[in-house]
């Protein structure tokens, strides 16, 4: 065994890349409470002072700075520091903290307009270099057909990653710490030889070329580390190196590409093995261990990409989704909670609450109660973490999956995703009623069909027949559009380093999404159980509805309507599967909106459920604001009816409860929150964002942002600093259902 591995238990992992096996054989389960944790050291606090000043500057100016003189890549910049002498974990994306690089690989116009938004101009040198290069965006628009362009324009499918990096990838960055770069390069070279000896089909040639690109960038990462004074050729020798190497692997990835959600994966229990070894050998104290984790988290909080206004509209609050997953149980039902799982949560106290990294608890009924309680306490105190159900994911993704972005699970380093934004389902219904005409623009987008009559009440069966036809049409168009996007992304903006930390031919998911689920569901319920009469305008387009009578609403545990929500998602997933995906990818579906529920609502006319034109949709799989009127349990029960097997890319539910409604005092609140999470996930539900706060506090924060510099709220699979949301997004968050005491 290698010298760096001394003290570890041997296994399959010593022979070939197998981080999961390493963890399984070496981690130390911790079932105690949080009392061992240490507060911030003076060093940490002094760095945080600098960071907080920079964050304040960023909130005021939008960006602290943009490096417009060069194109971002692994080696574009020299080393950068916050405070060189004090940092334990080093490395920044550019040469100064929070200064953003420019990335033109996704699309030139996007980068130029992003700079202009903040009053910067990309240097002629950089633009010249890109003059004769094809970007991902160029490629996509060469191949889009007219219908795709129209569908994108009217907003029935938008947010597509056709002008920015697709992201939603998780490299297995732990591999660098465990094996060192030389071994990883050797493995990739062996793969290249093996694929090089196969028949040179188009797909084989592509893999061989990708391997060459990966190896090139792996070598560049060694240079980057060297510039910071580290040799990453060999495995990490101690905890500090393990954290540093893991971070270098991640840092190189985000220097190279600006994907929407480059998540860091499931690293805390892996790193704990190194901490435990050092603690046992007496070369590290608990205070130092916490300090190292604090320093890593500071770095992850500083991750930034340069985005345009349109992008920020869809994904508000400048999120980067450095999603960090932890806990869960292994295949035998043993909880994978370690002391380092606690240290990660402790950073929210030591450094203050924060939206990034997006800390995701893989919740299982079998997690130790002490850890559950600490999670609940952190939720109540900081509103910064989210929960996903390990008991439904583990059996589908194995014991070493991580979450990318908000709710997308994948086996770490062995699976990847082709991200696909989402389709506006409320608009699909309106288009079906209008025979393929968009209700806002009045243009024919989908094939011509039956236009429902003015003044004649809608008949449910007839509406469903039309909806069936148009959802079939959009599903096919949606798959084909994504196929073009990912073909071009692989061709022109391949993530060389991120993919180097994946297996060579990983399993690929193609992730579709829907938005407006509760609006569509309640609209269909209104048509079925009440009387809905269309109203046309002078163009002959149905633009409004007269809805008379009562109808059951999604979010009240009423099967009559909840079944509609379930059927819609099952049905849409089945429809997507009819069209094959690029590169043999497997279709998946999410019910997740990020903050696009506001944008989609803005682009959608009046709906039969009574929602007025331009009003926001509910986020993700949430019931519509205020319509879940039977209490939190009924609301959670409704959402839990959606079938995870049809929505394998995640079912997002954002839950807001006032502290008073959760219980009278903190211990009671903690018990009730863990009971609630057990109850919800015990019903095979998938995800829950938890906010414990008062609406009045948010209104005050909207009007007096200076009073709440670090107010964090969970919005839809991620958290944001409330001050960074635009007014319309803040108002939407405030309008959401707050479960409160009666």
């Amino acid at each position, binding site marked *: 065994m290698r010298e760096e591995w001394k003290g570890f238990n041997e296994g399959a992992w010593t022979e070939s890349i197998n981080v999961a096996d390493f963890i399984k054989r070496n981690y130390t389960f911790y079932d105690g409470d949080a009392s061992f944790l240490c507060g911030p050291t003076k060093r940490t606090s002094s760095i945080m002072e600098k960071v907080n000043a920079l964050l304040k500057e960023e909130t005021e100016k939008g960006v602290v700075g943009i490096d417009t003189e060069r194109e971002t890549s692994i080696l574009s910049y020299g080393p950068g520091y916050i405070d060189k002498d004090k940092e334990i974990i080093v490395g920044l994306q550019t040469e100064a903290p929070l200064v953003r690089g420019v990335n033109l690989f996704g699309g030139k116009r996007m980068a130029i307009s992003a700079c202009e938004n903040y009053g910067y101009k990309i240097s002629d040198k950089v633009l010249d270099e890109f003059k004769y290069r094809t970007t991902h965006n160029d490629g996509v628009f060469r191949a889009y057909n007219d219908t795709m362009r129209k569908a994108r324009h009217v907003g029935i499918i938008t947010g597509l990653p056709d002008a920015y990096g697709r992201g939603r990838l998780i490299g297995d960055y732990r591999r660098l710490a465990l094996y060192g770069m030389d071994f990883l390069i050797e493995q990739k070279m062996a793969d290249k030889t093996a694929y090089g000896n196969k028949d040179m089909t188009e797909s084989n040639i592509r893999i061989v070329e990708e391997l060459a690109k990966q190896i090139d960038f792996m070598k560049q990462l060694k240079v980057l580390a060297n510039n910071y004074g580290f040799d990453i050729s060999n495995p990490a020798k101690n905890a500090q190196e393990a954290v540093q190497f893991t971070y270098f692997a991640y840092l190189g990835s985000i220097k190279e590409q600006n994907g929407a959600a480059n998540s860091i994966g499931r690293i805390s229990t892996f790193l704990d093995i190194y901490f435990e070894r050092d603690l046992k050998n007496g070369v590290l104290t608990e205070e130092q261990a916490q300090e190292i984790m604090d320093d890593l988290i500071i770095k992850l909080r500083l991750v930034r990409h340069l985005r345009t206004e349109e992008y920020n509209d869809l994904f508000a609050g400048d999120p980067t989704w450095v999603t960090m997953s932890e806990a869960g149980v292994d295949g035998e039902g043993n909880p994978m909670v370690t002391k380092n799982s606690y240290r990660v949560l402790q950073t929210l106290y030591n450094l203050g609450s924060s939206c990034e990294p997006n800390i995701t608890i893989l919740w299982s009924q079998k997690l130790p109660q002490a850890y559950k309680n600490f999670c609940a306490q952190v939720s109540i105190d900081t509103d910064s973490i989210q929960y996903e159900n390990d008991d439904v994911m583990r059996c589908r993704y194995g014991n070493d999956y991580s979450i990318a972005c908000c709710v997308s699970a994948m086996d770490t380093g062995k699976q990847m995703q082709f991200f696909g934004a989402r389709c506006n389902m409320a608009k699909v219904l309106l288009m079906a009623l209008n025979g393929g005409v968009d209700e806002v623009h009045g243009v024919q987008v989908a094939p011509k069909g039956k236009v429902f009559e003015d003044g004649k009440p809608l008949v449910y069966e007839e509406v469903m027949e039309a909806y069936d036809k148009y959802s079939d049409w959009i599903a096919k168009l949606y798959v084909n559009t994504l196929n073009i996007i990912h073909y071009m992304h692989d061709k022109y903006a391949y993530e060389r380093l991120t993919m180097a930390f994946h297996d060579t031919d990983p399993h690929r998911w193609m992730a579709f999404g829907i938005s407006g689920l509760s609006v569509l569901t309640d609209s269909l319920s209104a048509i079925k159980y009440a009387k809905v009469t269309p109203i046309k305008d002078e163009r002959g387009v149905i633009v409004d509805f007269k809805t008379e009578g009562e109808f059951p609403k999604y979010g009240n545990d009423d099967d009559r309507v909840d079944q509609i929500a379930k059927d819609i998602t099952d049905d849409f997933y089945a429809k997507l599967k009819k069209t094959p995906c690029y590169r043999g990818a497997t279709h998946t579906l999410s019910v997740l909106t990020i903050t696009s529920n506001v944008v989609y609502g803005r682009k959608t006319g009046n709906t039969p459920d009574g929602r007025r034109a331009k009003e926001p949709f509910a986020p993700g799989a949430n019931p519509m604001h205020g319509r879940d009127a039977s209490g939190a*349990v009924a609301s959670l029960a409704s959402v839990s009816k959606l079938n995870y097997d049809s929505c394998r890319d995640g079912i997002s539910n954002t839950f807001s409860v006032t502290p008073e409604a959760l*219980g009278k005092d903190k211990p009671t609140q903690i018990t009730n929150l863990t009971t609630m999470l057990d109850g919800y996930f015990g019903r095979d539900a998938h995800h829950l964002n938890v906010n414990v706060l008062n609406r009045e506090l948010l209104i005050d924060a909207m009007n007096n942002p200076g009073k709440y510099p670090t107010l964090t709220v969970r919005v839809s699979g991620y958290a944001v600093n409330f001050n960074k949301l635009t007014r319309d997004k803040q108002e939407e968050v405030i309008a959401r259902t707050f479960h409160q005491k009666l």
Partner: protein
Amino acid sequence: MGITLNVHSIESFATLEGAGIRYALFLQGCPYRCVYCHNPDTWKCGIGKPKTVDSIIEQMQHYKSFYKNGGGLTVTGGEPLMQAEGVLELFKRVHSELGLTNTIDTSCAVMPDNINEILHYTDLVIVDLKFHNNQDYKHYADGSLDNTIAMLNKTLQSGVKVLVRTVVVPDINDTFEDIDKYVEIVNKYPNVIKYELLGYHTMGVFKYNELGLKYRLDGVEPLSVTKLKELQSYANSKLKI
């Protein structure tokens, strides 16, 4: 056809009416007319949604995973004991079929014939001790202290645990002397596990406007948190609990 209850509303996630997370059943109808009531829409009898005991048990069964760690059913209102027959049936089945706990939140306005049997299936009684004399009871609630005492006596006989609550309204019952008198009553009952003061608030006033009812406490400010804390710690110092 099983027994039917007249329901005002249901809160599937109640945490303040007893232990754990609870299914709170707000029953329609109340004979009292408390000046500070924040649910005047539960007063009138004969309206509300009829719900069978079967359907309530079925729904609770469906939510059972949320009600572990001591959680269960709380009947409140309105005055739940106006529908005593249904409450008894429900309580029996919550115990035998669901294995969850029962709480009753009562104004003590009525004393049903089957009270002993109901208390047998009750894990906690929340007694609303509104005033410490009959005159105030009559004036502010159209009720009587005697009813409350009678109920407390019943709970003592049956040995069920009791949580006593009093809503404190500025200038009506917010002096130390008032608290002394309340505590004097509470101290007679060793089965009381807690005495809790609640501050008067105005969050239900809009309902009076909606219902076209006159709000008799117009202009009275909510009780301050500081004052409430002060009175509660004074009460605690005098309690024998």
